[in-house]
């Protein structure tokens, strides 16, 4: 890590010597392992590592960036020069520039519980065994499961370094691993696929492979016999796995880039009631053990906890330095960063706070409606909130699951949908950086038959 930080500092100094007024360098270094087992046999093993460096330079008010996977001295000089040449050909932008304030303790990710060295250095046989056990549990769970897309175990470690000409220099590491099974259930000529998975920062914290496999099997089997539901207006419950996507749409709609461009239906709505009073949404960049936790963001700004929606009222957008300046606000530490291009904005650990109602009680409360277990397609328009997506799930009659449904769409407008969230489950659980409990929407348009 120390060597990478020194390399990044060196590149910043090189850029300044070659004519940059300000400069910033990012280095990403990582390794990955994956094992896939299908019907008990090893199907694929992958093991590799890579690295890359990106440099962003400012020439007066003009900026540009360049990146390279070749970190030789000659390649670095070429990379810096090409960034400078592009910057000089660019346009003045008075808003662009490095942040004014940086995170305090940027060396390492101590205290966040996100890095466990050696996570990706697993013996191939051990990874295969986990994948095999997971798939085997799915295959054994029900006689209607005779086929599978496989079971997988994946692990990775990544190291991220940032240095700039304002004296910031830091680095942090993250490890992660996951386990999944994708069984296929068949009956009466119909095939249905579903999956389940577990994620953790270290292997010891992963859920048991057989538990993951059994849930995957149950999810696939419950889809058998699916048909089209009726067309009409019905209450719709999103199970947590499907409700996550609603949080994703909220994140897109409060993204500062969308806000300053007036390209979101939530632009200018701070302080207004945009959701049901029971809705509180938080973005917490420092959540202990969070899958998106990190000590600072893609520009070196300290990450923090931001309440986005409190009791239905919009409290904050998610911002990087550029969007914050555009809006006359402070960065919320949500700058995202690849090797290429200017910093973007992304949510960190984003969740909707759980309610007090068990999910089972929410299901029981619905006389006739839809329980959504899967969404497909890209039918959300953040400009005006229009929402129309493909879905599959279970039909509810008198508070109970009656039969599985598929080949249907759900449509509404997110601005109205957020206001009609009438029940929130107590079942918040993080299986990734974005999480939601069960949500009930009072009335959405379902298109089926």
């Amino acid at each position: 890590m120390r060597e990478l930080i020194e390399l990044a500092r060196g590149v910043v100094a090189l850029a300044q010597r070659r004519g940059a007024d300000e400069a910033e360098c990012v280095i990403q270094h990582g390794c990955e392992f994956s094992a896939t087992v299908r019907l008990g046999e090893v199907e694929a093993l992958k093991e590799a590592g890579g690295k890359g460096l990106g440099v962003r330079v400012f020439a007066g008010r003009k900026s540009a960036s360049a990146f390279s996977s070749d970190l030789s001295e000659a390649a670095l000089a070429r990379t810096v020069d090409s960034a400078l040449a592009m910057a000089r050909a660019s346009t003045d932008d008075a808003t662009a520039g490095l942040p004014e304030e940086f995170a305090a303790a940027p060396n390492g990710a101590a205290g966040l519980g996100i890095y466990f060295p050696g996570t990706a250095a697993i013996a191939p046989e051990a990874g295969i065994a986990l994948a095999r056990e997971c798939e085997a549990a799915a295959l054994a769970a029900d006689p209607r499961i005779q086929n599978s897309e496989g079971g997988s175990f994946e692990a990775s470690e990544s190291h991220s370094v940032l240095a700039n000409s304002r004296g910031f220099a830091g680095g942090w590491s993250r490890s992660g691993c996951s386990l999944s099974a994708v069984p296929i259930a068949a009956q009466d000529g119909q095939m249905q696929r579903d999956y389940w998975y577990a994620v953790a920062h270290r292997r010891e914290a992963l859920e048991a492979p057989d538990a993951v496999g059994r849930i995957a099997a149950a999810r696939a089997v419950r889809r058998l016999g699916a048909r089209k539901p009726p067309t009409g207006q019905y209450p719709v419950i999103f199970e947590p796995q499907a409700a996550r996507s609603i949080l994703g749409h909220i994140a897109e709609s409060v993204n500062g880039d969308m806000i300053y461009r007036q390209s979101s239906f939530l632009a200018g709505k701070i302080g207004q009631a945009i959701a049901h009073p029971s809705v509180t949404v938080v973005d917490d960049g420092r959540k202990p053990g969070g899958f998106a936790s990190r000590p600072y963001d893609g520009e070196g700004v300290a990450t923090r906890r931001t309440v986005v929606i409190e009791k239905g009222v919009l409290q904050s957008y998610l911002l990087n330095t550029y969007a914050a300046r555009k809006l006359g606000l402070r960065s919320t530490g949500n700058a995202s960063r690849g090797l290429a291009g200017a910093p973007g904005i992304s949510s960190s650990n984003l969740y909707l706070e759980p309610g007090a109602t068990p999910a089972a009680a929410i299901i029981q409360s619905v006389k006739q409606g839809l329980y959504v277990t899967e969404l497909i397609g890209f039918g959300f328009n953040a400009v005006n909130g229009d929402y129309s997506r493909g879905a599959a799930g279970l039909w509810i009659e008198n508070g109970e699951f009656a039969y599985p449904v598929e080949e249907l769409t759900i449509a509404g407008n997110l601005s109205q949908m957020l206001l009609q969230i009438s029940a929130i489950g107590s079942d918040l659980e993080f299986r990734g950086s974005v999480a939601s409990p069960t949500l009930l929407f009072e009335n959405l348009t379902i298109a089926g038959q």
Partner: protein
Amino acid sequence: MTSEAQFFERQFGVTAADLARYLGAALERGGDYADLYFEYQTSSSLLLDESLVKSATQGISVGVGIRVLSGERTGYAYTDDLAPDKILHAARTAAHIASGPARTHIVGLRAAVLSRPNLYAVPVAPAELALEPKLELARRADAFARGFDRRIEQVRVGYADELKQVLIAASDGTLAGDTQPLARMNVFCLAREEKQSQKGQSGGGGRVPLAFFETELTPETLARRAAEEAIRQLTARPCPAGEMTVVLGPGWPGILLHEAVGHGLEADFIRKKTSAFTGRLGQRVASDHCTVVDDGTLPGRRGSINLDDEGAPSRHNVLIEKGILKSYLQDHLNSRLLGVSPTGNGRRESYAHMPMPRMTNTYMLAGEDAPEDILRGVQHGIYAVNFGGGQVDITSGKFVFSASESYLIEDGKITAPLRGATLIGNGPDVLTRVSRVGHDLQLDQGIGTCGKDGQSVPVGVGLPTIRLDGITVGGTG
């Protein structure tokens, strides 16, 4: 010796003897087949937003992916360091998948000679040019869109290009190289009137020189299409919900084929019997009117490839002929396990990814009907002409795609524009409902990117005007 082999030798000192040595290391623990995929990619991109350059970047990525096949098993490793010890280490890592005595020997590498002209002989690739001419194109689009209508409030122009040089060497003696340029430009417009906001987008490109944007598809054309869509959507009304007759316009609506049938015909899903199209070869999967092809050999198209990423020449493959399923999309591994010929569809995102069966340019052949007649015959339905993305569950066969521009058809006439809506259907069944096919086949403008298993590859689609008798449309009206 291919020119790409010369390039990797000159730049990185990788000789023909080295290639054989690396393949030997990959097969030292056994295995049926090994291949090396060297890739050197330069790329650049630009974002003009609020008439300012918000992002300008360029870069280089280089690496080699090494694969060992042993029966149904794949061992894979890659490195972005082309030093011999690093490549040998990766080869031995990939070799872990195989065990037992070596079962194959390495055939002497022979450079493949392609018997047809280069599909994208671009003297100077856009990725080799400086920022200025690309910025000029973006400015033209920006200026045109802003001047188009006073209701256009936001304009964003994106431009991106890449140039890939690839070298493939395999234990069966394959030695092949390709140099693949790619460029694309997109215009996004936001229109506002009173409290209404709507967006419009248009993009295009291909494996083309930068002059393509001067002659074939100008920034002004893209800007006009994006601005028109945004303005038109301002008066759009909610789309109806339920099952109805839908007429798809020509070109990009061909995404229907990509989602509804294309993915389900990829041979990995067929071999594993996880696709709804498994075992359907020779059976009717579409109406008589439908002949669907996947064609990687169209000059300059975004989805075209001289060779696939395993060194096999791309082909014109007939997938469905007059409604009957004729062929699947194959790569090396799956064609071998299924005992059929490869179809030139083994593709991958980069050296860090394993190849798998993927589409190239997927389209339906033209029929005989006049598009006006097709519309005239619809009493009540929807005419959908532009789409956003789509997705498919290949096991259940259910697919969706989102209409960004569509209209109500009433008594055979196009009437009100409709707000965005999702269409959902069943892949093995939807093309049996095609009752009319127009004579107006068009290919898309060159914007498609297909995602599968986390890997993105450029693709194309095409469609004549078609009538679908009954598909579920998901609006709120």
